[in-house]
């Protein structure tokens, strides 16, 4: 779709950096550890984002660079080796260790790729050591997952390649639902990232892959370099998105339409039933989405087409036109799409438009509520199970809840 020319802005960006991806990635891959090499700010960020998870002996930590490292009094690589050895001694169950680059480690040009290679040599085969960047200067929020998976692609085995690969971390419950659907369609499927890092799926020429998330540009590029074929599809949000996503695989594997219909019909019907309950409340409501995760365009499509909402502005930190080729044409005519951010100007536009619902981050949400706007904080959309048929109703409910709440509190006050 080329009729939409996005507004491109540069200014203050009120977004998370890619380090935040650790918070859900470490839950997904149960034997991986994420070691950020950065500053106290990085440690504080991950701690703030992880909330109470930080206390559950989590599988992430920060190697804080201090003045001795900067002054060259300590050899950063020796220091890192020491920290990693201490960490692995403490956590012998770890099988994959990610050295995660940050803004400070990149600005001082600490070669973490080389460090990962060296440490991989030291600790293999027990522990594999990989490196990616989750820095704010390179990555925005969910791009941290892209960087992580991209770093992992070269380690995927070639032999025994799965015919279909689903790429992008999904909550286990969603992954299981999709596995059952593909099973019923007769399509052998593997998921990446895996639940255990020792069970990496193989990828070879001809492997076809579906993206479960819209923020995986680099991972997709590297998979294609290995000969895998991307199946273009909408993203599996709502009944329509999920059907379109499954159909792309079904078409590629030449599944008879009758079988596809039989397998998907119960899910489609359940999703439609669940959505109907929310349609009445959300239809006609005007929604404004601030940039956050790159989920905004597919979610806006879902809100507009399946819940009848009006889109005021759809902001995204980064617009990948090729991966959104099945999404953009489904957006209503004349929608304002914005890429990047100047948060003050965007807030001006938002206040002027007085939307019924604002989708935004936690730094802005209470501020806008205090100004009388109703908000849905966007991070929940990344942490909650929202993909697929069975979650379509839950996804709609996430947007309906703030409006229901506002109504209830207003009635109580009256």
């Amino acid at each position, binding site marked *: 779709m080329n009729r939409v020319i996005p507004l491109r802005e540069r200014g203050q960006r009120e977004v998370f950096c890619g380090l935040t991806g650790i918070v859900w990635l470490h839950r997904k891959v149960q034997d991986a550890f994420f070691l950020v090499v950065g*500053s106290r700010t990085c440690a504080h960020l991950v701690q703030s984002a992880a909330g109470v998870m930080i206390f559950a002996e989590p599988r992430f*930590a*920060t190697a804080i660079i201090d003045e001795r490292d900067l002054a060259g009094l300590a050899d950063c690589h020796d220091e890192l080796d020491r920290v990693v050895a201490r960490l692995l001694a403490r956590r012998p169950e770890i099988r994959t260790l990610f050295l995660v680059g940050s803004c400070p480690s990149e600005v001082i040009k600490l070669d973490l790729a080389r460090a990962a290679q060296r440490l991989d040599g030291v600790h293999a085969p027990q522990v594999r050591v990989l490196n990616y960047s989750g820095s704010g200067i390179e990555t925005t929020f969910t791009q941290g997952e892209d960087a992580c998976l991209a770093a992992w692609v070269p380690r995927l085995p070639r032999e025994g390649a799965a015919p279909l690969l689903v790429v992008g971390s999904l909550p286990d419950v969603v992954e299981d639902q999709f596995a059952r659907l593909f099973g019923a369609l007769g399509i052998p499927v593997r998921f990446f990232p895996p639940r255990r890092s020792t069970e990496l799926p193989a990828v070879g020429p001809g492997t076809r892959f579906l993206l479960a998330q819209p923020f995986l540009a680099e991972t997709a590029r590297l998979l294609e370099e290995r000969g895998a074929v991307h199946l273009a599809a909408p993203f599996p949000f709502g009944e329509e998105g999920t059907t379109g996503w499954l159909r792309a695989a079904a078409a590629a594997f030449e599944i008879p339409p009758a079988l596809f219909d039989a397998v998907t019909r119960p899910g489609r019907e359940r999703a439609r039933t669940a959505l109907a309950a929310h349609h009445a409340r959300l239809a006609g409501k005007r929604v404004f989405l601030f940039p956050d995760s790159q989920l905004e365009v597919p979610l806006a499509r879902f809100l507009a087409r399946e819940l009848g909402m009006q889109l005021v502005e759809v902001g995204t930190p980064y617009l990948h036109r090729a991966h959104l080729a099945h999404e953009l044409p489904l957006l209503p005519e004349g929608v304002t799409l914005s890429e990047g951010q100047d948060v003050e100007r965007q807030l001006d536009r938002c206040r002027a438009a007085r939307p019924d619902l604002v989708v935004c981050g936690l*730094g802005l949400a209470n501020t806008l509520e205090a100004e009388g706007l109703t908000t849905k904080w966007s991070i929940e959309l990344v942490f909650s199970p929202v993909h697929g048929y069975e979650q379509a109703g839950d996804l709609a409910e996430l947007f309906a809840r703030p409006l229901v709440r506002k109504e209830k509190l207003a009635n109580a006050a009256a």
Partner: protein
Amino acid sequence: MQLTLWTYEGPPHVGAMRVATAMRELHYVLHAPQGDTYADLLFTMIERLPRRPPVTYTTFQARDLGGDTAELFKTAAREAVERFAPQALLVGASCTAELIQDDPGGLAAALNLSIPVIPLELPAYQRKENWGAAETFYRLVRALAAPPAPKTEGRAPRCNILGPTALGFRHRDDLQEIRGLLGRLGIAVNVVAPWGASPADLARLPEADFNVVLYPEIAATAAQFLQRQHGQPFTRTVPIGVQATRAFIAEVAGLAQVDATALLAEEEARATWYSRSVDSTYLTNKRVFVFGDATHAVAAARVASSELGLQVVGLGTYSREFARELREAAKGYGVEPLISDDYLEVEAAIAAAQPELVLGTQMERHVAKRLGLPCAVISAPVHVQDFPARHSPQMGFEGANVLFDTWVAPLMMGLEEHLLRMFRDDFEFHEGAAPSHLGRAALPVEQSASADPVPAVPSTTRWTTDAEHELRKIPFFVRGKARRNTERYASDRGLATITLETLYEAKAHFSR
């Protein structure tokens, strides 16, 4: 490099944000990469502020690194001044911007702004949040305080209240308590800062006769400056606890040259009587471990020891800047001071001290949960539940009441749980029944089976069934200590088996 799983303090620029956010008519332009805006949500979510912190970030990205990050900073500063029209501007760098060596102070000066610009040098790789707050407040006061005005004779004594910031543990309510006390002494409050103050208010600081320092971690540097430059003495007593509040009243009255006899005669903390009432006798010499920022930890230890009659078995802080004060206090209790920001070290110290109550931060709350110990929060860092809607100061007489309730409540629950276990064979209080404050649902079977919080200590000594059974009759919150003492007693004497007699011999041996 330091391996860190959890950090007690954020970086120093978060301290600067706490000062800026507490104030009015001030804006902070922070040279920082994309992502550092995460700190906004500490204020909007944990403290639930209805406004964004007054901070503009340059949010530079990789493509900006090269020549134009300096330009980016200048644009951000210029636009922030136009948009927010503050009375003064703070400028500084976060950890990453510190490395790229743009000079925010110089760049801002080149803009020739019509308002004062205060540059901040916050060494992010050496210092932390509280230091950053103290330094920022000091720089602001130094830059903005006007020359001392001649004193007018015959007016009411006047003081400033220094220290309350955004994201401060109970700062909002402490301030209200202290204002109340000062009001009843007839002392006028000139300026409260940073909380609610504008840069113009900071200019008026020297008009006061003296300063009340509520939180030395934040206000001591500025107070020392005001003493040096403007001849204002400042208070040293932090009014946490009944005794400290009374000492504070006496100190303030001395500085203001007013009579505090009437106020001191009206003893009004219910906590004093509650602590004397016979119901509190069971608190006597209960072992308490205290950890937090230095001010709150030292104050809590004093209250615990001399106002609640507990026994301080551990005292520590993560505030290195106030290590001396804490070491001094630890001497008084005969305990080894713990100065550390490594929570694993704190956890080990707590486990070793075998306390019956932990007073600490959010982190110690979780350590205590893991060790099965009662705990109350006395200091930042804290979570959203410790920014309560209700009035709950730590300072003053009402603060003392709050401390009593907050600290004793988890112990009461401990006692309740013990009683439930004592009557475990009773038809109403069987082992599967959850404590009443957790509702009526029965615990899942495997949970109740593993509910014995006696840590499994690797040991060569064997317990006879009788002795093991007897051990289980001991209240769960001292059972771990009993087990450890008995095993130590047995191994010191080369006993391979612990019998009922060994248990009671050890008890007699270690009885306090």
